[in-house]
C-alpha cells in the first residue's frame, strides 16, 4: 500500500502542474491515464432510494467517483453529453434559486431581505413573510418538516408565535434592542418544584436591580381560539421571599387568576376559556412575604427580592 500511496501523491502533483501549464483550465492534460481505483461494492442511495447502476462507483484519490448520469437521474435531473465541447450538461429544475428582496404591503416596505425561491418551476415565498402580512401566528415542527399557520392541532399554538401588541413593565423596556416578553431562560429550562418545562414556549421574568417593574404583555388572538393552557409558578431559582400570581384578561375582563404561588410549590395548571377573546392580557403580580405588600403589573419591585416567574409552555388551542 505504501507504494500506491506514493503513486497517488505523485499524480496529485501532476494535476497541479497540468493546471499551471494549461491555465484557465485547472485540470490535468487530456488523454488516457491508468488510475488505481478501489472497488468496494459501493451502494448508492439517493433521497432514500437505492440506485442500481451497471456502472460501478469506485474510490480514487480519496474521492468517491460515480457515473454522473446515475446521481443526476436519481435526483430528478436530466443529463446530456456534448461530445464536441466535452461538456456534461445537467438540467435540474430542482435546484433552488433564491433571491432576497423587499417585503411590501401595498407597495410600502415592511422589511428588506425577504426570501423568495424558484424551485421546480414554482415560486415560493418565506412563510414568515406571509404570516406577518396576514397577522397569523405560525409554528414550524422541524422534525416533521411541517409548518402550521393559525393553529397547531393537538399540541396547540405556542403563545410566543404571536406578536406582542402591548408590553408593560420590564417587557416594555428595550432589552438588547428588543422590546417584548422574554421567552425562555438563557441558563436552562423553567423549573417549578423540580419539574422542567419547555423553555422556548414559556414566558419568563426575573427582576434585576432597582428599576425593575412587574411586567405584562398583550396578544391579539382575534377571537380565533377557545382555550389557553400552561403552567404557572415561581421558578426554583427564586429566593423564597415572595409569592407570585398570574392574572389573565380577555378584552379587558378578568378571565382567570391563579392562587399565590410560593417557591417550591407545584405549578398551578392553567386552562382558561378564551372563546371570542380578541385582546388577551397576561399580568404578573408579586407579594413580598415579610410585608405582605403586593406589587402589580407596572409597579417597581424592591431590589432586595430575587424573583423568577415562569408561565411555562403557554399555548392556545
Amino acid at each position, binding site marked *: 500500500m505504501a507504494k500506491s500511496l506514493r503513486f497517488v501523491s505523485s499524480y496529485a502533483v501532476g494535476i497541479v502542474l497540468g493546471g499551471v501549464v494549461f491555465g484557465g483550465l485547472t485540470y490535468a492534460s487530456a488523454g488516457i491515464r491508468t488510475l488505481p481505483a478501489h472497488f468496494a461494492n459501493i451502494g448508492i442511495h439517493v433521497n432514500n432510494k437505492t440506485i442500481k447502476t451497471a456502472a460501478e462507483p469506485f474510490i480514487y484519490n480519496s474521492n468517491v467517483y460515480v457515473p454522473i448520469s446515475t446521481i443526476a437521474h436519481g435526483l430528478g435531473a436530466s443529463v446530456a453529453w456534448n461530445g464536441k465541447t466535452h461538456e456534461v450538461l445537467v438540467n435540474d429544475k430542482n435546484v433552488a434559486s433564491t433571491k432576497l428582496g423587499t417585503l411590501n404591503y401595498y407597495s410600502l416596505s415592511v422589511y428588506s431581505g425577504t426570501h423568495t425561491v424558484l424551485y421546480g418551476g414554482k415560486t415560493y415565498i418565506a412563510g414568515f413573510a406571509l404570516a406577518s402580512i*396576514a397577522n397569523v401566528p405560525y409554528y414550524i415542527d422541524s422534525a416533521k418538516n411541517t409548518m402550521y399557520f393559525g393553529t397547531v*392541532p393537538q399540541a396547540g399554538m405556542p403563545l410566543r408565535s404571536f406578536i406582542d401588541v402591548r408590553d408593560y413593565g420590564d417587557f416594555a423596556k428595550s432589552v438588547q434592542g428588543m422590546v417584548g416578553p422574554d421567552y425562555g431562560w438563557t441558563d436552562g429550562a423553567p423549573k417549578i418544584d423540580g419539574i422542567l418545562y419547555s423553555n422556548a414556549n414559556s414566558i419568563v421574568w426575573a427582576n434585576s436591580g432597582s428599576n425593575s417593574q412587574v411586567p405584562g404583555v398583550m396578544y391579539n388572538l382575534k377571537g380565533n381560539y377557545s382555550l389557553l393552557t400552561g403552567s404557572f409558578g415561581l421558578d426554583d431559582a427564586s429566593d423564597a421571599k415572595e409569592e407570585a400570581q398570574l392574572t389573565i384578561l380577555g378584552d379587558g375582563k378578568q378571565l382567570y387568576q391563579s392562587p399565590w404561588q410560593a417557591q417550591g410549590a407545584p405549578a398551578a395548571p392553567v386552562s382558561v376559556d378564551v372563546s371570542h377573546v380578541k385582546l388577551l392580557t397576561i399580568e404578573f403580580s408579586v407579594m413580598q412575604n415579610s410585608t405582605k405588600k403586593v406589587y402589580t403589573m407596572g409597579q417597581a419591585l424592591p431590589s432586595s427580592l430575587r424573583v423568577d416567574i415562569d408561565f411555562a409552555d403557554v399555548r392556545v388551542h
Partner: protein
Amino acid sequence: MKHKMMVMLGVLTSAVIFATSGYASTGLHDIRASFANIKLIVNNNMIKTSAEPFIYNHNVYVPISAVAHALQASAKWVNRPASVFVNSTVQPVTVYDNGQKLPSGITDGSTFYDVPATNPAYVSAFGLTPTIDNAGNVSYEGQTPPSFAPSSTALMSLTPTKLIGDFSNSQLYPAGQLSGYWPATVLGTMYPGQFTIEWAVTPGQNAVVPGVDYNLQGKYTTLSGSFAIDDLSKNFDGSVQLTFVGDGNVLGSTGYVQTGQQPVPVSISVTGVQTLEVQYQVKSANGTITNMGSTYAAPSVNPDGSKTDPILVTDFMNAALQ
C-alpha cells in the same frame, strides 16, 4: 493523507467481509480513464470541481461530493456496508392553515420555510395576493382592497385646502402629502398606507399637533374610517383623539385612543358640509392635553428607552367619503 488512506483501507476490509451483492470483484484495480477537460455544467452554470471528471467504461465519472453540491444535495459516506447517501438539501414541507392542508412548501433544511403563496389555495386561505418582481421583491395586497366601499371617495384623493401644525411642515410632509409613509399596522393587522393619514412624532422633533382641511363642496353624506395608534409606538403611554369639524361646528370625535386598543371606527355625517377639518389632540400620561396648532412636549426618549424609535405614530385608516 495517512488518515484518508486508513479510511480507504477500512472501506476495503469491510467490503471484503460484508460484501453481499452486485459488482465486479472488490479491491484495487487499475482502470483506464480518459481525461478530456470535461466540464460539468448545471443549469447553465459551470461547476468547479476540485477533482477532475473523466470517462471510464463509456461513463462520465465525477466526484460525488462535487455533483451533489452542485445539485444542492448532501453526500454522506457510510463505511459498513460501503455506501454513499445522497439527499436533496431542499425538502418538501407539509403546510396547514387552521388544520386545513395547503399545497406543500419547501425548506433548505436550516432556516427557511417557504410556501407557494401565489398558489390559489394560499390566496384564498389568506386573502392576500402576492406579486414578485425579478429582483425578488414581494408585494402583498388584499383581495378586496381597501376596506371601504368601491363607490367611496378616498379622503386621500382630495387635495387639502389647509395644513396645520406638523402637516404644514414641508420637511415632515413634503408637498402636503399626508399618507403613504409606512404600512399602517395596528394590533398586528396591516392597513394600506396609501389610504391612511399618518402623523408621527420622533424624539427631538419639535412637534406641533396637526390638523387638515378639505373642501367637500357639500357633495358627501358620510366620512368613514378608523383611528388607532400604530404598533410602531405600541407602548406610548398617552392618548390621541381626532375631532371632526364641519364649517365650524363639531361633528364628532373618536374619543381619546390608547395603544392596546382596537381601532376606533369613525362614521360621521358630513351632509351639506363645505369645509371639513380633521383636528388632532394629544393627552400625555399625566393628563396634559395639547390641542391642534400647539407644541406637543414629547418625551425625549421612548418608553422602551430608545432615543431613535418614534415616540408616537397615529393612523387614520381607510378614510373615505360617501
